[in-house]
């Protein structure tokens, strides 16, 4: 997989996710409507709403992702070192300057988002700035810029919002399936059970959708092309080492946004719900570091 077919694969996969989201939500509502005897009305409404949501997510998913992680945009004067690093490396990769965001959190981590290189943002935590040296920061920023260049950010942001939404729904219904019958009326419990079962049946599909977004290849490719930019593999290798070793989990990361970050923000702590825990599949840091050191 090289950079050029990575770009077209990412664009294609984004479409697949958007279409599947509409199909999934409409089907779900159809099942719900049938169980209630409402016919197709609900499914029709759901089709329109899911269509708008899916289309809208293409444009607003990056803002949503930035908002949920608590990232604040910074100017050159507020964070000169970070800003200059991003500026220099984007010159080196020929990308237009992305917006720079800071997350006020001691856990070192970073991510990039945006639908294309012209509407891209890079967010890093204050912990990352404090704990990494200049060359390590360069390694991380170069990795994130590679995600932007490869259009990984488009697919990852749309996946975070749409599949994340479905995963949250899944968790809600799974819980009600678990506790149904306790103080709830039989009819409502029955409907929730039906939807819960639909989710159980569909969970392998949802899981493979998430796999579309989180592929090991994607991270390895971004590592490699990032190094091509900085010409210094050790920078990223030791940055990953520091980030992986740091015991602090990132407070604002959620299941839906975890796959965006350069390293698993939960630090392998279980994050509750089993359905959305499907998101926690980062390639192991040790493997990436080993590869970087062999370059």
């Amino acid at each position, binding site marked *: 997989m090289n950079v050029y077919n990575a770009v077209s694969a990412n664009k294609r996969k984004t479409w697949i996710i958007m279409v599947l989201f509409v199909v999934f939500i409409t089907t779900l509502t159809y099942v719900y409507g049938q169980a209630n005897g409402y016919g197709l009305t609900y499914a029709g409404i759901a089709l329109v709403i899911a269509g708008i949501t899916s289309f809208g997510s293409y444009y607003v998913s990056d803002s949503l992702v930035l908002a949920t992680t608590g990232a604040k945009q910074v100017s050159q004067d507020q964070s000169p070192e970070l800003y200059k690093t991003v500026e220099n*490396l984007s*010159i*080196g*990769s*020929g990308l237009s300057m992305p917006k720079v965001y800071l997350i006020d959190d001691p856990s070192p981590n970073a991510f990039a988002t945006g639908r294309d290189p012209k509407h891209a943002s890079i967010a890093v935590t204050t912990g990352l700035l404090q704990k990494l040296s200049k060359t390590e920061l360069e390694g991380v920023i170069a990795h994130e810029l590679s995600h932007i260049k490869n259009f990984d950010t488009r697919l990852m942001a749309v996946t975070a919002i749409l599949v994340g939404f479905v995963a949250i729904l899944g968790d809600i219904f799974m819980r009600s399936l678990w506790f149904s019958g306790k103080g709830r009326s039989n009819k409502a419990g029955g409907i929730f059970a039906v939807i819960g079962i639909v989710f159980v049946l569909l969970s392998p599909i949802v899981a493979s959708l998430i796999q579309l977004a989180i592929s090991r290849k994607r991270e390895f490719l971004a590592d490699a092309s990032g190094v091509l*930019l900085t010409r210094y593999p050790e920078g990223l290798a030791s940055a990953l080492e520091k980030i992986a070793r740091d015991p602090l989990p990132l407070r604002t990361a959620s299941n839906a946004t975890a796959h965006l970050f350069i390293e698993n923000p939960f630090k392998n702590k279980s994050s509750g719900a089993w359905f959305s825990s499907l998101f926690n599949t980062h390639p192991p840091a040790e493997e990436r570091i080993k590869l970087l050191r062999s370059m």
Partner: protein
Amino acid sequence: MEMYIVLGIIGVVVLYLWIVYNGLVTARLRIKEALSHIDVQLKRRTDLIPNLVETVKGYAKHEKGVFENVTKARSQLLSADSTKEKAVADNMLTQTLKSLFAVAENYPNLKATENFQKLQDELSDTENKIAYSRQFYNSNVLDYNTRLEVFPSSIIANMFKFQPFEFFTAGEEDKKPTKVSFE
């Protein structure tokens, strides 16, 4: 039947020519754009220098030789035309600036001024940006020049007279050790 096969083959060949030709044109445009990025940074650098020279002059009037060298290198960079000339002139400017900063080392009062520190920071930031834009330019040149060399795109490049581009390097100058003279 045979006519269709012949037509089909011709169609495929024309399509291939078309794709390779467009690829070459795009790669050439990318190089030109990358070169303009370098020019922006070089311009920024030359703009900073008169200010810097004036600031240092205020503290070290008698170091005339150093100022002359810097000013000369700057005007050479401004008048440089080809990529090679620019690269050489930029490299010379780097060398003369090194001796300027070496002179500044002897004047603690100068080094303490905010203006000097700001100029020094901006200059080193610009130098970093030049290095990165150079890297981007060179990687584009490598991509384009490779297409001119490898078969079969080399045939098409030859047919339409695509010329190779020069890398942005000062050549031999790069390898020489820095000479800092205190006169």
